[in-house]
């Protein structure tokens, strides 16, 4: 007795032919764009976790009363605090844009919200850079002390991520205005921006307070 064996035509051990089994339909749980972004965020999360850990140990190793080091300017708590609220508002706007996009609201509405999120994010980075310029003028530089090195390393790395995420927000806004933005791309950009926004309060409390 011969049996016909083929991936498309499974047979049983007795050699009888059965109708080809149709595999159950699979639905994609998560898009490639979102999965890729989640992996990227995981990597960046550990990058910042490493920086935070190093900063915590160096800070705890300082002689009592010597952190921040004497002679170094104090960080602008109030201005950065208000700036943090601007960044949080930007994150909220991005989520409102996502909800408008998902609910089938007119594209211009979601696009306006997305542009608002990008604008507030850009305002955050601009205010931060103005503050850094002032701090550098007062002597807080990368080479001035470990304090300065960590400050610019941690906050600067966050700013670089913010800039990249703002570029992504603007890209998604442009696609939205043309009606060519895929839902998965929007979700990936939103995930990145949410990461950048959610990370900032942790850094603020750790570095500034």
């Amino acid at each position, binding site marked *: 007795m011969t049996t016909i064996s083929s991936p498309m035509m499974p047979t049983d051990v007795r050699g009888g032919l059965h109708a080809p089994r149709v595999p159950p339909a*699979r*639905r994609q*749980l*998560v898009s490639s764009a979102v999965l890729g972004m*989640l992996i990227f965020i*995981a990597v960046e*999360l*550990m990058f910042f*976790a*490493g920086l*935070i*850990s190093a900063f*915590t*140990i160096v*800070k*705890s*190793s300082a002689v009592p009363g010597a952190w921040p080091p004497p002679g170094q300017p104090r960080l602008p708590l109030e201005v950065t605090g208000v700036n943090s609220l601007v960044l949080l508002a930007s994150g909220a706007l991005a989520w409102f844009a996502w909800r408008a996009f998902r609910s089938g609201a007119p594209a211009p509405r979601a696009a306006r919200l997305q542009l608002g999120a990008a604008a507030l994010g850009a305002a955050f980075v601009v205010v931060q850079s103005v503050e850094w310029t002032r701090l550098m003028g007062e002597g807080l530089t990368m080479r001035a002390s470990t304090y300065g090195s960590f400050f610019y390393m941690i906050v600067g790395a966050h700013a670089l991520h913010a800039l990249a995420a703002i570029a992504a927000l603007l890209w998604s806004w442009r696609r939205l205005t043309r009606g060519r933005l895929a839902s998965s791309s929007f979700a990936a950009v939103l995930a990145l921006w949410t990461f950048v926004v959610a990370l900032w309060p942790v850094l603020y409390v750790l570095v500034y307070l």
Partner: protein
Amino acid sequence: MVVALAVALVVVWAPEALACSVCFDANGERREAFLATTIFLTLTPLAFVFAVVWWLRRRARDLDVIPPAE
């Protein structure tokens, strides 16, 4: 008997080997920082993975991909 006594003495009298900063540091605050950051660096990736898995399971339920248990 002598060997057993010698082993017991070695075990009892051997000094502790605290070879890493988490085990010992003259600066108590720094030791706590090492311990805290060790816990932080251990739990952060696990928390992220669990959060993603939880989200995927919830999403699977929402999409009704998982067949009902028999």
